[in-house]
């Protein structure tokens, strides 16, 4: 029982990270109809920037404080992601308005290549560490109520907390600010939003900035867990089943989908893996999403599609 719950909690923690990646997808898809395959590259790029800046800043400025250096590195990386967002809107999206989904998807793959290339040219292509002072030691909880207690990774716990905090902030941003309201209007109907004077281009820049920041947070968490390396770009592929499970346009969908996939992956790895061989979690997540889609083609929270003729 204890072991099962541990696995479950581990899955939820991992799922929280998937949710973060999926959130980036959903934000961009909602606002601009672009299925952003570059989300993974953005995570990699942001994590690389963070890792290198936090190593370079003490050298450049002679700061000793780890915290200060990390803080400055975070601000610099965030600014960099905003620049990237602005460039993407200026140079790519603006010229691809009204193209169909497949073309846009391919364009974001192009963006992914460029980001990966530039990222490794500027920041190098070794494996880097991000040390933001996440606690590494595991803790024992609930020793009283469950026999043997539950062993939990503190780092996961903090990560999940940060992710939850980020989601909460985003929710507030979307619901309570006028920019958020404009964003939702654009998501509902581009043309209608434009006709009442919402500047589409600026909204897109903002959305890509937000997605960039989400990528940065995801990059820092994944990076501090696993190290920053090229494989981080494939995180996007891990996030995809989450997106279709939750529905391409639904933020709660991304979060709950992430948790379901995280738990499903962990449980399948632990209980199914030994039976049919390891390494099944990637395709298992996809199959899970797929079976689900057969029953609800629009995803968990996606809008129902009605054909009109």
């Amino acid at each position, binding site marked *: 029982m204890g072991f099962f719950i541990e696995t479950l909690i581990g899955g939820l923690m991992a799922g929280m990270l998937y949710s973060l990646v999926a959130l980036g997808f959903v934000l961009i898809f909602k606002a601009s109809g672009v*299925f952003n395959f570059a989300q993974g590259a953005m995570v990699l790029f942001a994590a690389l920037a963070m890792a290198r800046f936090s190593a370079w800043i003490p050298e450049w400025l002679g700061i000793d404080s780890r915290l200060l250096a990390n803080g400055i590195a975070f601000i610099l990386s965030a600014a960099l992601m905003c620049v990237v967002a602005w460039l993407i809107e200026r*140079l*790519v999206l603006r*010229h*691809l308005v009204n*193209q169909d*989904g*497949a*073309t846009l*998807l*391919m*364009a974001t*793959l*192009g*963006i*992914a*290549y*460029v*980001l*990966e*290339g*530039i990222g*490794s*040219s500027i920041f190098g*292509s070794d494996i880097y560490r991000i040390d933001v002072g996440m606690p590494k030691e595991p803790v024992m909880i609930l020793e009283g109520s469950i026999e043997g207690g539950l062993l939990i990774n503190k780092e996961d716990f903090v990560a999940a907390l940060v992710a939850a905090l980020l989601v909460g902030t985003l929710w507030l941003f979307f619901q309570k600010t006028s920019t958020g309201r404009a964003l939702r209007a654009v998501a509902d109907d581009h043309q209608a939003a434009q006709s009442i004077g919402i500047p589409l281009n600026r909204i897109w820049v903002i959305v890509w900035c937000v997605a960039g920041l989400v990528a940065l947070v995801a990059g820092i968490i994944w990076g501090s867990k696993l190290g920053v390396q090229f494989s981080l770009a494939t995180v996007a*592929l891990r996030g*995809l*089943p989450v*997106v*279709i499970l939750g529905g*391409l346009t639904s933020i709660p969908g991304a979060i709950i989908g992430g948790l379901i996939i995280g738990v499903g992956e962990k449980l399948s790895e632990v209980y199914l893996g030994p039976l049919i*061989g*390891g*390494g*099944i979690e*990637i*395709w298992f997540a*996809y*199959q899970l*999403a*797929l079976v689900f*889609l*057969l029953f609800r*083609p*629009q*995803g968990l929270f996606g809008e129902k599609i009605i*054909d009109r*003729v």
Partner: protein
Amino acid sequence: MLYRENGQFRTSYAADQQIFPIAQDRWAILAIVVFAFVGVPLLVDEYLFRAILIPFLILSLAAIGVNILVGYCGQITLGAGAFMAVGAYAAYNFHIRLDGLPLLVSFLLGGCTAAAVGIFFGIPSLRVRGLYLAVATLAAQFFTDWVFLRVPWFTNNASSGSVSVANLQILSWQIETPTDKYLLCLTILVVFALLAKNMTRCAIGRQWMAIRDMDVAAEVIGIRPLFAKLSAFAVSSFFVGTAGALWGFVHLASWEPAAFSVDRSFQLLFMVIIGGLGSIMGSFFGAAFIVILPIMLNQFLPAIGRVFGISISTAGVSHAELIIFGVLIIFFLIKEPHGIARMWSTGKEKLRLWPFPH
């Protein structure tokens, strides 16, 4: 010589429904095919065969397959690499397990197996569409990656995980030199391209396109979406699977699942989008573009660097390649979202009227 169709009157529907109704086109294509069979083997050296021509031919075949599904039937797939893998491994298993099975039969059986798997993974297309479907096809990709890596039966228990074939032979023709390989691929490609063209101009092709353009209306005039979509998945996967078998047997000779990774799937999708969706000709253009571009970059970047007195490291070159490749793709999508095939047909249209602009 002028490109004119004056005086060419088509007096029967048969003449009007030819693949190339304009005489100049017919001659040009015939000349190109003859040149490819006779001229190229005399002129080209081994490196060009290995590095460019053979990959180009095989990937063109795969691109035609992907184009049937994506361009003609409108079902986006990100799992084409998986069907190449199925084709390659199935052909391999037929080849080694059934002694004396002719090589071409192995290839075709590989293609058929891929078609069957394609139908299976096409079933979601009956319920989901667009980008949801695209993601669903990734399931095929990751599943096959895993199966061929982890299930030893498929690789004949090869300890290294990689499989290899040797001594390819069709009847008494030993396929050894790059020229032999080139001719084999060329023959298969020409036949398959013709089949694809025929299908797309017949009833089945119209069914696919009808489903692509307006599926409700297609159903109303009596097209069954089930048959149209699954047949597109089957035919497409058959083409892609056969290409996969060629890629493994003829081009690589020894391969691992990584040869058919998700990057391959993306590459194939690039080819059909850059070449032109819904155009057999476009598949060739796209394949040429994607095959040649990286090689060109690889050759020219260090040279350009030397001109400016910079020596670019190998890592630097590969990063720059990535960047330039990405930029070119974006540039292309912005400049001509309908692909090279559209540029080609506007060019021809202009040539027909030349020197008058209208």
